[in-house]
């Protein structure tokens, strides 16, 4: 058997510190977890409201992101037009923008006296401080994850498959439905899961634009923060653990994309 050279010590030691930096916070959470009262905390009225609301808003935001994002990703991948790079910059911005800035911006756009919000208000539509507003905030922040994932998939899928389908008698809509979409399905699922996880964890834009109203806009992250500030640390920790478990499931679910080295 061939002997392999021992890896150098310094980078391995630094890497170990980096791993600790990831592991320690999780360990802290587990160490302080009130295991005996966990079930009681989880099944409290407030906690269940926050949980339910988080599921509703994050799934709705993902649905909106799919409806708007699939065509956007397709256009970005397949249509040549002037200003395409500008559009890409604009639609990617929420990934790097501090979410609280996004929330402020949404207020000035869609708030009661905002750019478009005042018109919406006139026809009786109010977004700020409503559940719909929370969905808008989550969509704004999370949609780029779906669009970028899907755009890459549209770009790399073999155009000749679509051409073959056209020559076999399928119109453009049918080609999209029966060839293009099935081919990008793994990416669509991955993008939607990423988008959903980001929406579920959304804090800054939601609290700024939609406020912190129990059962209306108080999603899990907001609930965790509120309980923590209000010294109900046990509730904060238990619900944090719920979010950790969900995040772990996402990472494991997308392991083929992230955890394998190709």
């Amino acid at each position: 058997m061939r002997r392999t050279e021992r890896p150098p010590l310094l980078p391995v030691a630094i890497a170990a510190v980096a791993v600790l930096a990831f592991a320690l916070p999780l360990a802290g959470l587990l160490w302080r977890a009130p295991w005996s009262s966990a079930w009681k905390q989880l099944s409290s009225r407030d906690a269940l409201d926050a949980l339910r609301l988080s599921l509703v808003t994050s799934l709705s935001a993902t649905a909106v992101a799919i409806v708007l994002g699939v065509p956007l990703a397709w256009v970005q991948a397949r249509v040549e037009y002037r200003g395409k790079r500008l559009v890409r910059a604009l639609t990617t911005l929420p990934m790097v923008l501090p979410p609280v800035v996004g929330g402020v911006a949404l207020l000035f756009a869609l708030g009661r006296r905002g750019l478009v919000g005042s018109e919406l208000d006139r026809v009786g539509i109010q977004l700020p401080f409503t559940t719909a507003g929370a969905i808008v905030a989550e969509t704004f922040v999370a949609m780029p994850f779906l669009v970028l994932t899907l755009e890459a998939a549209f770009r790399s899928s073999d155009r000749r498959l679509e051409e073959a389908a056209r020559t076999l008698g399928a119109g453009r809509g049918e080609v999209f439905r029966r060839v293009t979409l099935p081919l990008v399905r793994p990416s669509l699922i991955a993008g939607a899961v990423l988008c959903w996880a980001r929406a579920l964890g959304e804090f800054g834009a939601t609290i700024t634009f939609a406020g912190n109203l129990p059962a209306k806009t108080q999603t899990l992250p907001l609930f965790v923060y509120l309980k923590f500030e209000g010294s109900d640390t046990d509730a904060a920790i238990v619900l944090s653990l719920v979010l950790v478990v969900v995040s772990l499931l996402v990472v494991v679910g997308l392991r083929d994309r992230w955890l394998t080295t190709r």
Partner: protein
Amino acid sequence: MTLEADVGVTIGAFVLDVALKVSNGRTLAVVGPNGSGKTTLLRTLAGLTPLTSGHITLDDEVLDDPAADRFRPPEARSVAIVFQDFVLFPHLSALDNVAFGARARGRNKADARRYAGEWLDRVGLGDRAGAHPRELSGGQAQRVALARALASDPALLLLDEPLAALDATTRIDVRRDLRRHLSTFEGVRVLVTHDPVDAAVLADDVVVLDHGRIAQTGTPDDITARPRTPWVADLVGTNLYRGTANAGTLRVDGGGTIAAATVVDDGPAFAVVHPRVVALHRAKPEGTPRNVWQGHATAIERVGDRIRVQVAGPPNIVAEITSAAATALGLVDGSELWVAVKATEVDMYST
């Protein structure tokens, strides 16, 4: 019932300008170097690339005519393509690949699948109906691609290098099957290829493209005998013999024999001899070549920097020699010559 096309396409600096006419039941081979416009020509016929000028009509139906602002999109044309590397739908089984066209053209799912099953049987893949493309061998994938194209009941069948992606041994089998299937298909066939044997075996007529224009048209035999450009001479101007093999020697239909170093099964076979490996002598050559026969020069042509000499045998053969060698031979029309070809330079295979 005919395909009539006057194809004008301008893509950047590239100009394709080709006029064709192909009748039902005939196969036209389009040959030419890379970049000559072969694939672009096929794409215009399928409607994947619109014409810049000219027109395409199939059975008196206008498919494309930019001057009259008429264009039928691919899905509204009765045209099917067999692509070079098959382009099967990876997410569908072999059966559903073949059923795709029938489904798209309005048959219900069960009906389309039954029809597709018949086609898979016909290409000998009835037992692979449930396999996905990644589970098929190259030869099987090619047959699925052919069945998929034919099952959409096209009036015009386009084949883009249908054998190029296959290894040499598979190619021989698939070519034989393809020839059989093409002969039962009643519509118009257009085949793009760079393999002279494909053109000779599969096509009734050949069009040679060069830089977007037709360099030569004719039957495969015409073009083999009288190529007009060095490229054509290299590509299709090769000696192809059909006959019956017996213990490594081909008895050529029309007279004479050719021996090869490779042994093939006894029975119908082809032998290919490239003109550049044919040696010409004024006297019977001494030494080892196994194929030696006498003939006389019937045509002498200069192609580029080389001289092509047709020698009447039997068998007849085309030799390509340098002008220095031609001078040394004192070559004129009617010269008596000895032809020599080493058995190791002969490619022979069963049909």
